[in-house]
């Protein structure tokens, strides 16, 4: 059971953005996508999430081709957290978190639902925000709320053995260091509970420290994938980013100025 992309190519408005990419998201592991601006990280995430259809190749969620899954079925396999639009109407934080609840045969009045929301609110450390209006929160706080929503979407109601996946597009932008660390801890915990995590990261040191595996993208291609020590090497980083980079092992530290 994995999310598997097999030799996918994608384009937007006729401009090729990804070519012949193959990748696997494994339950319980954190896979970081790194690479320079415009390398195709967000496009790859959209293809894996099913927002963008590849022009070639296929994506499989636990061996099921997503071309054969409708949007509702896809929602049960994976949740995505990205830069969301501002809310026009004045929803409360609680409303936004609860929007992540897929019915799963359990309605809102069920104890199951209440337990799930409570647990996720505690886990994401947003209990002090829960009764506030969403639009009055800061950018970082809104991010944490959307993260909680994405986590609630993956809540397992029955004793389903089907693996679920969490995809995050630069979740750490706008977060202060305390909330950055606490968000990373929650993501880690989610992975430990068997969720497969795909995370787009800018900070190479963070990727080196945090991810189980790293996929390096450059110009629409995967130029390296594997454990951080194998991918984040002086040679590869220098050629991909076109700046002198110095990598020191134990602990893996990347410096570029």
């Amino acid at each position, binding site marked *: 059971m994995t999310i598997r992309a097999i030799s996918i190519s994608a384009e937007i408005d006729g401009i090729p953005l990804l070519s012949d990419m193959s990748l696997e998201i494994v339950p319980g592991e954190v896979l970081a996508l790194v690479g320079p601006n415009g390398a195709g990280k967000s496009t790859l995430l959209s293809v894996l*999430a*099913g*927002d963008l259809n590849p022009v070639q190749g296929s994506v499989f969620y636990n061996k099921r081709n997503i071309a054969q899954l*409708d*949007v*509702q*079925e*896809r*929602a*049960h396999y994976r*949740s*995505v957290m*990205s830069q*969301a*639009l*501002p*809310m*026009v*109407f*004045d*929803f*409360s934080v*609680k*409303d*936004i978190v*609860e*929007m*992540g*609840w*897929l019915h799963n045969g359990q309605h*809102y*009045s069920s104890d199951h*639902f209440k337990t799930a929301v409570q647990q996720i609110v505690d886990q994401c450390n947003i209990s002090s925000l829960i009764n506030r*209006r969403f*639009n*009055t929160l800061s950018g970082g706080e809104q991010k944490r709320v959307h993260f909680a929503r994405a986590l609630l*979407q993956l809540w397992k109601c029955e004793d389903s053995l089907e693996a679920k996946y969490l995809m995050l597009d630069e979740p750490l932008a706008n977060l202060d260091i305390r909330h950055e660390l606490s968000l990373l801890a929650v993501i880690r915990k989610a992975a430990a509970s068997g969720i497969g995590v795909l995370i787009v990261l800018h900070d190479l040191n963070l990727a080196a420290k945090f991810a189980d595996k790293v996929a390096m993208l450059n110009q629409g291609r995967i130029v390296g994938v594997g454990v951080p020590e194998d991918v984040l090497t002086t040679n590869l980083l220098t050629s991909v980013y076109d700046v002198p980079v110095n990598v020191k092992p134990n602990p893996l530290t990347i410096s570029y100025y």
Partner: protein
Amino acid sequence: MTILFNKGRSNSGLVSVQQSSIIAILIMLLAISVLFAGANGSFDLSLFAWLKGNSTDIQNIVMSEIRIPRVILSALVGSSLGMSGAALQGLFRNPLADPGLIGVSAGAALGAAVIIVISPAALTESFLGPFLLPLAGISGSAAVICLLYLLTKGFGYQGVTYMLLVGIAVNAIAGVAIGLLTYISSDAELRTLTFWTMGSFGGVTWRLLMPAVILILSAMIYMAPVYRKLDLLQLGEIEASRLGVDLGKLKFRVIISSAAAVGASVALSGMIGFVGLVIPHLTRLLGGVNHNYLIPGSAILGAAIMVCADLASRILIQPAELPVGLITSAIGSPFFLWLIFRINKNDY
């Protein structure tokens, strides 16, 4: 664009206890307005005497053939405008999406005007009979919503100005077409046409009312399953689809049901402005923004307010009548200004 209504409370999952009690209060308000509107009017008759059977023949006829259909029609039109306003605002993610402002009502009026002027005989002779006028109204409003859909690239988040400009253009185009129809119409047709531009519940008969009742009630039932999906849509289209919302189906349902409700209403009662804009905002202020409260709440509040507005139009300057569209616009337009002041200016 962001509007902060500090008093709005909500709960996306279920209608809260508080919201249920607000709905119950609104229903009582509607019942009281209906009784009051039934009991008052330019013709002197007592509701209780009528209920007990102590009224004269002419009083019976006024009550059952004129006043009751009229109260029912005003309630239905108010609820369909309120409900469609709420649903369209949710679909467009835009608090200014009123069926009147964005041209949907004008489209319906145009559809109805075409039938009245081009083939008035069809109204009585064709096999569709009394359904023809509402159907023409619905076709007109559906055509406008489709046009808006194309011009706003799938109701994407385009900002208020763009939406209003499209609405102005659509209203102008429909205005020209109605003007042309007015120009070529006969005296009798002209009189019927005038009834649209002013908006009135007068002259309704059971024969005309029943098709509209059926259409509007079916539109409400058809719209019911989309409440939660409209909540999710507020996160943005991509986010909603990642949460399992089939956007195509959702849009189709909201567009068809709003077009049916507004089209049937406008075909019978003409263009009644600002109700679709104001009612959902009032409903949000009362109880919250989640659609499973907002849409039924707007339907009930819209009905109650419209019944009262029609009563006012009947008794304010009796024995003459004030057009009800004038009353709603007189109340609605200052509210519209107030709303514009509350909209965050940075988002234009």
